[in-house]
């Protein structure tokens, strides 16, 4: 029993070293012709609803906005921004489009925001869809406007 275990251990050790040699042999030509590197993509790193901005930073992140506050901010930050592009903030109130805001982005990273003013008639559930230049939804933020 003991002898058989030793034999199996030895056999797998040889097999492993052999496999490593083969892999090493395959790896070499790779270094000669490297795979094409994926170009950096526009990446949304932060998207929040907030009551205001201070030094381009969101203040009081929340999902409930009282009409008394007057404004609602949607803050978005992108890193990296590979090339100069645009994004969109689409504001909806109860599934009905209310506002579409186009925002420019510059390299290498960029933060931008949009805001709306709220009144009593705006009370209800809202959402903001953040879209890239191709119209692809990057994120949806949901909030409510209350009394």
């Amino acid at each position: 029993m003991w002898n058989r275990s030793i034999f199996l251990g030895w056999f797998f050790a040889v097999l492993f070293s052999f496999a490593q040699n083969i892999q090493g042999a395959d790896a070499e030509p790779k270094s000669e012709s490297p795979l094409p590197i994926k170009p950096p993509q526009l990446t949304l790193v932060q998207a929040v609803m907030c009551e205001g901005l201070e030094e381009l930073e969101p203040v009081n992140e929340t999902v409930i906005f009282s009409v008394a506050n007057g404004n609602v901010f949607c803050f978005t930050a992108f890193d990296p921004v590979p090339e100069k592009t645009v994004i969109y903030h689409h504001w909806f109130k109860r599934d009905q489009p209310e506002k579409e805001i186009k925002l420019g982005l510059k390299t290498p990273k960029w933060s931008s925001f949009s805001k709306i003013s709220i009144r009593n008639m705006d009370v209800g559930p809202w959402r903001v869809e953040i879209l890239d230049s191709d119209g692809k939804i990057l994120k949806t933020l949901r909030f409510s406007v209350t009394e």
Partner: protein
Amino acid sequence: MLQKLLIFISSIRWQDFIDIAFNSYILFRLYALFRGTDAFRVLVGIAFLWILQRLAISMGLILTSWMMEGIIAVAALIVIVVFRNEIRSVFRARNIWAILWGLPQKPMKTPVEIITESVFDLAKRRIGALIVLPGKEDLEEFVQRGVPWDGKVSKEMIESIFWPNNPVHDGAAIVSENRVVEVGVILPLSSRTDFPSAYGTRHRAAAGLAETTDAMVIVVSEERGTITITRGFNVLNINGRNQLINAINEHLGVRENQSRFLKRRKIELRTAALVSLLIVSVVWFSISRGLDSIKTFDIPVEYANQKPDMELLNTSATSVRLFLRGSRALLKSIRPEQIRVKMDLGKAVDGTNTFAITNDNLSIPPGLSLKEVRPMVVDVNLDTRSKKNLPVQADWVGKLPPDLILFGVQIKPSAVELSGPKTILEGMRTIYTTGIPLNNITGSGKTDSKLVIPSAFLKLASGFKETVEVTYEVKKRK
């Protein structure tokens, strides 16, 4: 005139002939079965009242027509209750063939002579006897404890029944036609107080049955050997044979000339058949061909054969107005439930389908025809049934305390699947909860909230509940 008559005759269908013939026969059979009974006489009275009611309606006598209608309704009920025995005896005594086809049988002759001879012989020997000769009413309810006999009437038999040593001699014997049907029968006693003192229990029993039914009872006194007959409230002492024979004949309605009687019966039945035919023809004519008029009916539209994957969203009309033409009597008797407007959605497609309303879509009682329909077409909006996954969003209401910030919300499940018409689902991006009050929030927590399904056509897919769990995070404002 002749041309009009020919046109009219040619317009009668073969179904109409069957209709009239069948109903005439039913009427004639009712006459044949119930003729001579009290129930028939009352039915004739009801028919007369009905004619009066129709007259009252046509003359505009509102109160009279209502009163007649009420009396007819009550009388019809009373006929069934009061004359149940007569009705039962008519149907019980005959087999189905006799009810449908058989004519009234030639009456069996009651042996009046034999009964008379027997009665006088019994009187002579001072043997008490009670002989019941039933009228048209069933005696079953009024007498008790009879012994079935069913023997042919003979002088010897009658005398043996009332022979003092016979166990059944004290009761009455019922003689129907030429048979003694029952003996030892106990009759109800009369409660009259004006009887002569000489009358005993036997006389009182005879009077009791005669008062309550149309039977005639012959009494032979044991003490005095006298003969008395009771019929209705009359009590008559018999002095001679002829007097008794005449009394029995009068009670049984026996005619002197039997062949003449049969001839009259034949004429009567033929007349009845003719009258039945005439009545039904008049009723049929008044219903189907009488005064041509038009009546409108608002009938709800029914939809059938809808494909299982289709949803009916809306229709341009939920009901249509039909202008039907026919006799006034027929139109008056028609209820809207008897008319149907049915649309076949078997070949309908997505979107708006326009259906014309034609006779093919209508089901109207025979004898009526469609003159006009409004609207002439119905638009039916159909949609394919579909499914969609929708994110759930909390609908916050009220006012959050000003020192708090609600910064995080999680909903379980975060999305639900809805099924329903494709066009409705296509326009939906979010499903909202019912209003969740903010006023009472003092810290982070969770609450259950119902989903608001915005259309009756939409349903939650199986596995999803109408309630979601909303977890919220709150912090103090700096």
